[in-house]
Structure formats: structure tokens, C-alpha cells
């Protein structure tokens, strides 16, 4: 998390632009790391058949026991608010994708990642690694037990804090259905101030990144629940 030598003076968050739909603005100036990393040349269009190739399929061998329960990977229980996160992985035709590998990683309840690069002066939790995996079932369903991650500072701009989120990585049926994204929690006061969240400039599409509090799936005396469905795109964005 290095600070660029040349401070960015522009707005951290750009105004909404519903015309972009679910596309992210990859050269989003308020997210400073995009400056030297987002491609500048126009993307080249591939022949149609190269959008339709099958992708990798992962089986049970990709999983270890307790991979989908991030609260039971150590001798003791992690600190924080225990939650269930569940939902479905769907194609953009609305049909469930079964056997999809879903990988997650996140900060602990204090907003600290178990990673050498993270120097946020918040405590690590010896009972929390913050990583999980699962495969979707025949109805496209995935489920994780974890703890609610904390917000954390990230030096992108003055007093920059990321809203609490869980990173998700998903493989669909097609190679091109690959998606890496972040799931957020409803009502986070940091939403209007976060350039990563707002790099999706269509507000309706942005809402698709926010989980729904799910009282029906909440386990009494145990854990709150959140529901979040993911739709994988099968066709390319316009170059």
C-alpha cells in the first residue's frame, strides 16, 4: 500500500453515471493505483468463439475440511460478530451454476488482514486466517460461516477508509465468466466516500455489491445471516 509521490488533488468519488450499467470504470482517478496500471489502449475485440470456451472445473479435491467455516480453522474461536453469508451463483441467463469454485478472503473483526503488507495498527487474531472456499451445490448455492470484517484505513487519500467487505473470487462454466469482486454490508456509512465501491458508477449496479440482511436465515442465539447472489457475465463489454 504505497502512497504515490504525486498527490491526487481531484475528487475521490465521481458522480453517478447510470449509462455505464454494471461496468466498472477501470481508470478511476480517485482510486490512485489505477493510474499506472489500468490499460490505456482500447481493448481489442476477439472472435466470438473465443468468448465461448469452457473454463476450468474444480472438484472436491480443491477443498479442505472446514474451508467454508472461517470460524473453525484454529484451536479457538475468532473474535467478532459471527455471521453466515450465503447466496447463489447464477449465469446472466438467470440459471444456477453448479460446482462453481467460490473463494473468499477478508480482514478480521478489527480490520486487519493476515498479510505481511498490512500495517494497520489493529490486532491480528490468532484464531482467524480469513480465507475460505466452497463449491456451489446443484442449485448454485454457496455458504460460509465467518465473522464480520472491520473497516480499515488504506491511505489512498486523506482519511481514507474501506467499507467492510469480503473479497469473492468465482469461476463459472465459461472461461470468460470469471469474476473477482467484493461483497459489502448494507447501510455502511463509508459507501459515499469509497472510490473502489463507486468505480461502479451506475447506482443500481452498485447496489448489486451489497448483501441483504437475512433474518430468516439468522440462527437464533448463534449468528446473523446475510444473503448475496452473484451473477456472472458471459458476454463481453463493448471495447
Amino acid at each position, binding site marked *: 500500500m504505497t502512497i504515490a509521490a504525486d498527490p491526487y488533488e481531484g475528487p475521490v468519488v465521481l458522480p453517478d453515471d447510470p449509462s455505464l450499467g454494471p461496468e466498472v470504470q477501470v481508470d478511476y482517478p480517485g482510486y490512485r493505483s489505477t493510474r499506472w496500471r*489500468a490499460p490505456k489502449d482500447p481493448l481489442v475485440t476477439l472472435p466470438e468463439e473465443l468468448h465461448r*470456451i469452457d473454463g*476450468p472445473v474444480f472438484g472436491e479435491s480443491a477443498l479442505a475440511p472446514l474451508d467454508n467455516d472461517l470460524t473453525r480453522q484454529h484451536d479457538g474461536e475468532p473474535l467478532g460478530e459471527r455471521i453466515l453469508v450465503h447466496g447463489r451463483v447464477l449465469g446472466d441467463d438467470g440459471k444456477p451454476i453448479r460446482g462453481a469454485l467460490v473463494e473468499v478472503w477478508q*480482514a478480521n473483526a478489527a480490520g486487519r488482514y493476515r*498479510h505481511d503488507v498490512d500495517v494497520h495498527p489493529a490486532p491480528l487474531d490468532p484464531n482467524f486466517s480469513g480465507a475460505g472456499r466452497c463449491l456451489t451445490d446443484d442449485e448454485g448455492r454457496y455458504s460460509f460461516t465467518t465473522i464480520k470484517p472491520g473497516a480499515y484505513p488504506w491511505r489512498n487519500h486523506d482519511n481514507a477508509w474501506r467499507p467492510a467487505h469480503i473479497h469473492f473470487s468465482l469461476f463459472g462454466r465459461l472461461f470468460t465468466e470469471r469474476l*473477482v469482486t467484493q461483497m459489502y454490508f448494507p447501510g455502511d456509512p463509508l459507501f459515499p466516500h469509497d472510490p473502489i465501491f463507486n*468505480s461502479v458508477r451506475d447506482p*443500481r449496479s452498485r447496489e448489486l455489491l451489497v448483501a441483504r440482511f437475512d433474518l430468516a436465515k439468522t440462527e437464533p442465539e448463534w449468528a446473523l445471516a446475510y444473503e448475496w447472489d452473484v451473477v456472472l457475465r458471459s458476454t463481453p463489454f463493448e471495447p
Partner: protein
Amino acid sequence: MSTPTPSQTVGPYYAIGLCRRPDDELDPDGIELAGRLLDGQGEPIGDGVVELWEAERRLWGRSGTDAEGRFRFLVPRDAAVLEAFVFARGLLRHQRTRIYLREAEDEVLAGLEPARRATLVAWTEDGRLRFDIRMQGDRATVFFAH
């Protein structure tokens, strides 16, 4: 049509979730394919991930980059082309490119200027394949709409 879920960056801490086990051998008996991931100032991207897919034989691999931006795979010697995705902090969506293991004639390469098509072809160095990925600049790698 359901609206697709938007992409968000993989961020700097992806290794927690994506690099828990070595996944860089598409073919354990293959040839080494090594390279660097570089930003628009020629600086290494030390927090990137490259994923490769050899669609013919259905071989997949993933390599995080080190502090010098280096990635490394073992790939089948006789593969023609590998599909590639690049993820990194600062990339709000992953980018798609192709790695040709040797010069080739196909529709994709034919549509590119010679200097641009050269960015997609690996070269041999000390008995292994080399391929650098440049996100920006005069020698920027060709990225494809996806």
C-alpha cells in the same frame, strides 16, 4: 437477462485467499514460462496475479507475482497459445490477454500491427520461455475486451 455483478479489484491481500497452495504447474513435466508484470512506469507490480488456461487440454494455473513482479509457470511445451487473466491492486476489473508460445498465424494476431502482435509472443531465454506483461506504455501488452 440478469444484470451481472460488477467487478471489484482483487486488492493487495489476495494471496490470503488465492495463493494458499501452489497452482503454477499446468504441466508438471512442462517448460518454464516466466515473466514480469510491469506498470506504466516500468515498475514491477508486486501484488498481481496471473491465471493461465490451456483450453485444448483443459490445464489451468495461477501465480502471484513477487516483489520484482515475477510470475512463473510450468506449461506444456507443445501448447500453441494460453489464455491469460491479469489481476492486481489498481485493476478494478481483471484484464484478458493471450500468450503465444511461438510465432503463429491466426485471426487474432493477423488483426494486429506487427509491434502490437509481438507483445503476445513469448521468447526463449536460457532454455525457458519468457513473457512480460506491460499494463501501459509504448510496448503495452494487447488486452482484449471480455
